[in-house]
C-alpha cells in the first residue's frame, strides 16, 4: 500500500495536450476517483500511473519511488479494464493466476491466492470456466480477482462498470465499496459517471481538458463547487444556470434576472461584478413561493415522474430550467408555477472565469 504522487504531470500527443500540468496527492489506502467528461484526460492520467503511457513532463511517484521510467510490471500495480481484458483461451483460474505464474510464485501460493480471491468475489464455482461462458458481471469479477491476487500497492480501475447494465452497475458498485473497505488498498478509479464518483470516492478529482478543476471529498464538490463546470457536472439533474445582473442594496446583494429577483442574506452578500451567472440546483427549487422575490417563475413544458421526485422542466429566458419537486405535488403542463429558491445553497459564478463567487 502506498500513496501516489503526481507532480506537474503533462502528456502531449504531438500538438495535442491531453494532460496539462496536473499535480495531486493520492492518499494511501484511500479510494480516489478521477471523474470528468470524455476526453478530459482521466484515462490518460491513469495509464501514466500504470506505466502504459510515457510521461511527457513531470514526475509520478508510487510511495517514495519515482516510477517515470519503471515498466508497468515492476510498479506493483494492478489494473481492471473497461472491457475486462480477460485472456479468452484460458479458464478463470489461469486468468487470475497468469500474473503470478509469470512472477514465478510457488504453485501452492498461487492456488491459495486464487481461491481466496474467488471466494471473496463469489466466483469460486467458475474457476474452470472460460470467459465466453460467463456473464458480464462474472467477467468483471474475474478481472477484479486478477488484480486482487497480485496484492499490489495500488489498484487502478478504468471505467470498469461502464459495460454493465444499470442494475448490475449498482450492485457491483456496492461490492467494490465493500471490497475496498476490506482490502484497504490505495485505489485510483476512473469514470465519467458522477454518481459512481460520488458514491465510491473518498476524494474525487473533477477533470476537464486535461486539468483538475477540483479535488475534494464528494460532498464538498457538491456543496462548494470551485467553478461552474464542477457545479454543473456534479449532481443530477444538473444545476440550473441563469444570467443575472448583480447590484448591492442596503448592504445586501441583489440578483436580477428574467422574471426573478433574489435578495441574498447578509452573510452571503458581497461585491460582485455587474453580470453574473446564478446557479440553483433542481432540488433546491421547491415549495410554494411566499413572495415574488427569491422565487423563479416557470411555465411548465415537460414533467417527469420519477417516483421519488417530480422533475418539472420549463424555460426562463430561453434557458431550460429543471426543478425537482415533491412527487405528490400536482402540476399542470403549460401552467405557471412559482418556485422558492433556497438562498443558502444558491451559487453565483463569474461569467468569464467561471469561478465561484458565492
Amino acid at each position, binding site marked *: 500500500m502506498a500513496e501516489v504522487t503526481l507532480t506537474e504531470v503533462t502528456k502531449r500527443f504531438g500538438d495535442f495536450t491531453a494532460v496539462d500540468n496536473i499535480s495531486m496527492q493520492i492518499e494511501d489506502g484511500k479510494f480516489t476517483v478521477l471523474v470528468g467528461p470524455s476526453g478530459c484526460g482521466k484515462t490518460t492520467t491513469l495509464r501514466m500511473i500504470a506505466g502504459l503511457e510515457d510521461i511527457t513532463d513531470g514526475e509520478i511517484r508510487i510511495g517514495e519511488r519515482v516510477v517515470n521510467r519503471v515498466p508497468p510490471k515492476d510498479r506493483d500495480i494492478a489494473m481492471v*479494464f473497461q*472491457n*475486462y*481484458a480477460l485472456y479468452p483461451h484460458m479458464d478463470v483460474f489461469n486468468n487470475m493466476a497468469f500474473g503470478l505464474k509469470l512472477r514465478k510464485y510457488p504453485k501452492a501460493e498461487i492456488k491459495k491466492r486464487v481461491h481466496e480471491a474467488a471466494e471473496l468475489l463469489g466466483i469460486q464455482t467458475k474457476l474452470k470456466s472460460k470467459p465466453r461462458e460467463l456473464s458480464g458481471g462474472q467477467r468483471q469479477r474475474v478481472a477484479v480477482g486478477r488484480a486482487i491476487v497480485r496484492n499490489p500497492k495500488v489498484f487502478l480501475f478504468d471505467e470498469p462498470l461502464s459495460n454493465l447494465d444499470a442494475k448490475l452497475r449498482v450492485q457491483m458498485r456496492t461490492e467494490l465499496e465493500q471490497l475496498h473497505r476490506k482490502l484497504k488498498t490505495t485505489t485510483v478509479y476512473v469514470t465519467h459517471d458522477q454518481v459512481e464518483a460520488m458514491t465510491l470516492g473518498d476524494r474525487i478529482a473533477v477533470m476537464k481538458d486535461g486539468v483538475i478543476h477540483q479535488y475534494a471529498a464528494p460532498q464538498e464538490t457538491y456543496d462548494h463547487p470551485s467553478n461552474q463546470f464542477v457545479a454543473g457536472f456534479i449532481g443530477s439533474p444538473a444545476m440550473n444556470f441563469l444570467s443575472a445582473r448583480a447590484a448591492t442594496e442596503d448592504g445586501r446583494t441583489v440578483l436580477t434576472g428574467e422574471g426573478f429577483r433574489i435578495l441574498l442574506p447578509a452573510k452571503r452578500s458581497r461585491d460582485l461584478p455587474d453580470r453574473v451567472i446564478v446557479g440553483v440546483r433542481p432540488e433546491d427549487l421547491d415549495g410554494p413561493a411566499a413572495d415574488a422575490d427569491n422565487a423563479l417563475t416557470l411555465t411548465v413544458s415537460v414533467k417527469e415522474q420519477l417516483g421519488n421526485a417530480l422533475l418539472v422542466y420549463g424555460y426562463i429566458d430561453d434557458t431550460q430550467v429543471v426543478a425537482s419537486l415533491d412527487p405528490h405535488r400536482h402540476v399542470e403542463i403549460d401552467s405557471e408555477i412559482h418556485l422558492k429558491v433556497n438562498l443558502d445553497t444558491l451559487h453565483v459564478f463569474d461569467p468569464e472565469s467561471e469561478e465561484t463567487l458565492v
Partner: protein
Amino acid sequence: MAPRRMVSRAPLHLVILLFAAIWIIPTLGLLITSFRDPTGIAGSGWWTVFPKLFSGGQFSLQNYVGVILREGLGRSFLNSLAISVPATLISTFIASFAAFGFAWMRFTGRRWLFMLVVGLMVIPLQMTFIPILPIYRKLALAGTFPGIWLAHTAYGLPLTTYLVHNFMSGLPKDLFDSASIDGASAFTTFSRIVIPISVPALASVFIFQFLWIWNDLLVALIYLGAGPSVAPMTVTVANLVTNRGQDWELLTAAAFVSMALPLFVFFSLQRYFVRGILAGSVKG
C-alpha cells in the same frame, strides 16, 4: 422457409443449381471414366453407364492401382507431401512472428517495412525465376526439397503475413495492456496469449497456403525439376498427359488421386476456411 419465400427464391436456387451442374458434370464424367476399362471408354461415352449402373462388371480399381504403382503417382504423392507440409509450416511460422511484430511492436520504419513486405505480392512469380535459379545452382539448392521449401516460403510470405497481420491487429489493445501489467515480455505475450488466440486464423492461412503449394506446377518444375525421386503430383500428372495422352483411364485416375487430399483437407476443415475469409477479431 415459408412457401412464399421459397417461390420467390426459386429462380435464384435454379441458377445456383445450374452453375453447380455446369461445374460438376464434367468432373463427374472424369470420375466415372476413371473406374472404367480402356475398351469401355473407347467404345461408349461415360454417360452411358447410368442405365447399367448397378449391374456390375464395368467398374474396377485397376486404373488407380496402375497409376499409383506403375506410373509413379504413389511416389509423387509422398513427394507432394514432403514439399507442401514443411513449406506451409515454415511460412506460417515465420508469418506469425512477422505479423505480430508488425501489428503490436513499435520500431522505426515499421510501416514502410510492412508495406514493402505486402507489396512484394505484386511481383509476378515468373519474373523471379531467372535471377534466382543461378543462385540456387551455385548453392546446390536446385532440385532439392529444402530449395523448394525456401522458394515457396518466399513466395507465400507476403500474403500469409498480410492475412495473419489482419487478424492480429484486430485483437483488443487492452489485452496487451493487461499482459504488460501481468509481467509478460513481448515473446511471452506472443507465445502464450496471441498464438493460442490466433489458432483459427493460422489454421485458415495454413489451409490456403497448403492448397496453393499442393496444386502448384510451375515452381516445382523450375526449382525441383521432373526427376521421379522429387517430382510432386502436379509434375507427374503433367508428364502423364504428355506421354500417355490417349490413355484416358490412366489420366482420369491420376487426376482424382491428385485431387483426393485437397478435397479431404477442404471438406474436413472448411469451417476454418470460411472463418479465414471472414477473419475478424476475437473479443475477450
